[in-house]
């Protein structure tokens, strides 16, 4: 289609002055469940086949992945050409757009139930070799894909001779992954809480996708997620995905290697390369979880493995403590499952819960801990949430964006549930220590409920790519601090001028993203004193403007000006107030929050005002005391009368001396 036709069909959107996206030309064949696809072109080279994915508004795109993969040229990866925030007329807001090289052979599978079988002879050249290269590139870049599934694989060419992995950055990791292509542990987590994971997760997803493509069917089919997890737990992933298929031995090898449920045993890039180069590896045998000699009855159902029991407990949270008391679970673990370590750990967890002050709270954490002990590989499960250790951040972000209840997530962090998960690990993992420290820091933010802290702070701290979802900025997709003031400036036209531009989300966003010292302003902004809070708001915005060198914020300055009443009123001198009221609108027209801050919060002016006020106060007080004395008659009225009497006596004596002197003179002469 010619550019002109597309331009005629709708408004063109420009990304970084270089790429044109055509909202009027959707490409459903390249879209993802959470990201629409549109035709895109490069300005200088219109012939280059490109398309744009528009990230679902508000969703945190994986910016770390975008940074790592931009420009990476791998035969098995859909080339990421550019990414950034654009004005998006169809949604009347800004959105994140990802520009990809356009695969021209179409999608490998239209849906997870509509799978076309791929010939074994073609698999090595068309699929395994490019994807292995892609996985190696991802590992080299230090990121994971977490979106490898048949429906997110595309044929790079019209000849369909090479497969490329589709986008992996427009949604949280593994958010759209069906359980069938996810490792059991990840599948047990909520879609938004699967976390970045690690390279073995990508190999597993690739193995599962390969198994599906080789068979031309999805063994998970229409099964619900619980059933898929149960089958994988019972049969092992290979057994569930390819156990019934008749496959040549090399394919069995690669599938057993990549679908190994033990992550430490699962094939990695090196094993894959050896296999591609023709070296035959011993197929890994699936390790099925140990079954107990007798069942544990929970909620009238029998369970033979610890994992199944943990899943059941996580689904019947409130009933757990009542049904495992009296050492029943410990005995079952010790005798029927013959797992002394787990039995001891359960006894310890139940024992420590008994002595807690808040028994209900302790009970809930104990249930979480027991689930962790029973199934060490499972995600963190607490009440209704189920999250991988590194997935709580994205879970919180998605829940918040979708307007869900974040109370349980906050509660899990407050009650150190992730810490309990880290404590129940079989072996030391340095990544866990980092995550543990990070969650401890988040707990600190949650404990301080003031503006700039709380759950809002946590969501921006944990999610580097989380856009600020304040009502003031949500339409501008503010991911970086430098985008914040222009967004607030743009919103100023719509603002009623009554509320502060720094609401809880904006404050938390600033606190999480600022690389400079803002501690004092953040503390002051939370004060109940409106004067100090207003000045802190102005100073904080001015500091950001000054540090980022952003001028001309006319709208925001005018917005802020309307809120400066308490700050002006903080000056005692009325003349100074009038002077400020004259000056402020003039400075606001210049768009300089820095100058406004200097004018209103000048230490010299404030000190002079205080000195003047103190002197005036003393002067007033002295006058007051004198007036009180006059009014209460405490003035010494005797003193003037005494003086008058002295004067009278003096007059009398003077007259006496004069008279005597005159008489004496007259007698003598």
């Amino acid at each position, binding site marked *: 289609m010619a550019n002109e036709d597309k331009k005629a069909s709708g408004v063109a959107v420009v990304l970084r002055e270089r790429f044109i996206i055509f909202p009027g030309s959707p490409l459903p064949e390249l879209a993802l469940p959470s990201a629409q696809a549109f035709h895109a072109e490069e300005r200088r080279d219109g012939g280059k086949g490109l398309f744009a994915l528009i990230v679902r508004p508000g969703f945190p795109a994986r910016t770390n992945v975008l940074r790592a993969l931009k420009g990476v040229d791998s035969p098995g990866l859909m080339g990421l050409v550019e990414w950034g925030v654009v004005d998006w007329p169809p949604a009347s807001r800004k959105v994140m757009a990802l520009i990809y090289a356009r695969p021209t052979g179409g999608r490998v599978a239209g849906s997870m139930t509509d799978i076309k079988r791929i010939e074994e002879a073609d698999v090595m050249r068309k699929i395994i070799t490019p994807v292995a290269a892609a996985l190696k590139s991802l590992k080299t870049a230090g990121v994971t894909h977490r979106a490898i599934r048949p429906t997110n694989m595309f044929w790079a060419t019209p000849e369909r001779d090479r497969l490329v992995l589709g986008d992996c950055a427009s949604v949280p990791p593994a958010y759209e992954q069906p359980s069938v292509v996810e490792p059991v542990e990840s599948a047990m987590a909520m879609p938004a809480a699967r976390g970045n994971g690690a390279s073995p997760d990508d190999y597993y997803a690739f193995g599962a996708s390969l198994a599906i493509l080789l068979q031309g069917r999805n063994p998970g089919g229409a099964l619900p997620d619980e059933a898929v997890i149960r089958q994988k737990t019972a049969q092992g992933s290979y057994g569930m995905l390819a156990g019934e298929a008749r496959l040549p031995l090399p394919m069995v090898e690669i599938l057993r290697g990549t679908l190994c449920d033990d992550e430490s045993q699962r094939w990695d890039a090196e094993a894959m390369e050896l296999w591609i180069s023709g070296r035959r590896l011993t197929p890994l045998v699936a390790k099925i979880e140990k079954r107990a000699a007798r069942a544990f009855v929970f909620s009238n159902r029998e369970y033979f493995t610890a994992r199944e029991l943990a899943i059941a407990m996580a689904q019947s949270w409130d009933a757990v403590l009542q049904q495992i008391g009296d050492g029943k679970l410990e005995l079952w673990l010790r005798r029927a499952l013959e797992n002394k370590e787990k039995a001891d750990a359960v006894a310890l967890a139940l024992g420590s819960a008994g002595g807690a002050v808040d028994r209900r709270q302790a009970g809930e954490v104990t249930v979480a801990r027991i689930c962790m002990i029973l199934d060490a590989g499972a995600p963190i499960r607490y009440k209704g949430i189920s999250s991988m250790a590194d997935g709580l951040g994205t879970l919180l972000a998605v829940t918040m964006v979708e307007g869900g209840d974040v109370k349980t997530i906050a509660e899990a962090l407050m009650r150190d549930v992730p810490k309990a998960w880290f404590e129940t690990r079989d072996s030391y993992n340095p990544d866990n220590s980092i995550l543990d420290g990070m969650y401890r820091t988040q707990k600190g933010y949650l404990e301080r409920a003031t503006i700039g802290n709380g759950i809002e702070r946590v969501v921006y701290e944990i999610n580097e790519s989380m856009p600020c979802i304040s009502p003031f900025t949500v339409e501008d997709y503010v991911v970086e601090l430098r985008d914040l003031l222009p967004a607030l400036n743009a919103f100023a036209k719509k603002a009623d001028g009554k509320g502060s531009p720094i609401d809880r989300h904006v404050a938390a966003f600033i606190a999480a993203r600022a690389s400079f010292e803002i501690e004092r302003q953040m503390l002051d902004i939370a004060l109940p004193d409106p004067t100090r809070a207003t000045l802190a708001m102005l100073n904080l915005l001015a500091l950001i403007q000054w540090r980022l060198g952003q001028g001309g914020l006319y709208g925001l300055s005018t917005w802020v000006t309307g809120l400066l009443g308490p700050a002006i009123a903080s000056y*005692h001198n009325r003349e100074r107030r009038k002077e400020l009221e004259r000056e402020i609108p003039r400075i606001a027209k210049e768009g300089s929050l820095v100058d406004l801050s200097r004018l209103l919060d000048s230490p010299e002016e404030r000190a002079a005002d205080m000195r003047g006020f103190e002197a005036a106060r003393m002067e*007033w007080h002295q006058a007051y005391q004198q*007036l009180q004395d006059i009014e209460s008659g405490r003035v010494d009225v*005797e003193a003037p*009368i005494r003086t008058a009497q*002295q004067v009278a006596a003096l007059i009398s004596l003077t*007259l*006496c001396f004069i008279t005597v002197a005159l008489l004496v003179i007259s007698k003598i002469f």
Partner: protein
Amino acid sequence: MRRAGSNRLLIMLTLVALIPFSLPTLLVMFVGMMPTLGAALSDRSGSRYCWLCVGGLNFAGLANWLLFLWFGHHDISSAIQMLLGDHLMLMVAYGAAGIGWLLYMAVPPVVAAIQTGTTHRRAANLASQQKKLVELWGDEIRRASVPEIS
């Protein structure tokens, strides 16, 4: 109080010592300055200026006859004659004492009236000064100065 008493005693002793040498003068002065003595005895004010005020003019009125005594015949008979024969002397001495008394009575009310006027003016000035301070610095200075009236 004790000091005033000791002064009075000193004066009395001096007068007693002078009696043998100037009995005629003392006689004339005792009779001629009766108003002063009365003023000294009746003055209950703290300052005790009344006798000075009355005494000054009383003595001025008597001075002419005292000089006449001193420069003439300074003896008891002349003094008695002067007291009994010259009515003008007592009239002048007592009249002058009366003027002194009037002076003592009249000056303080005048001063008090002036004082009252000054106080009113001062109160008005203080109130005006306070008003100006409140206009420039706001009502806070009232509250900051006198918390109980806020």
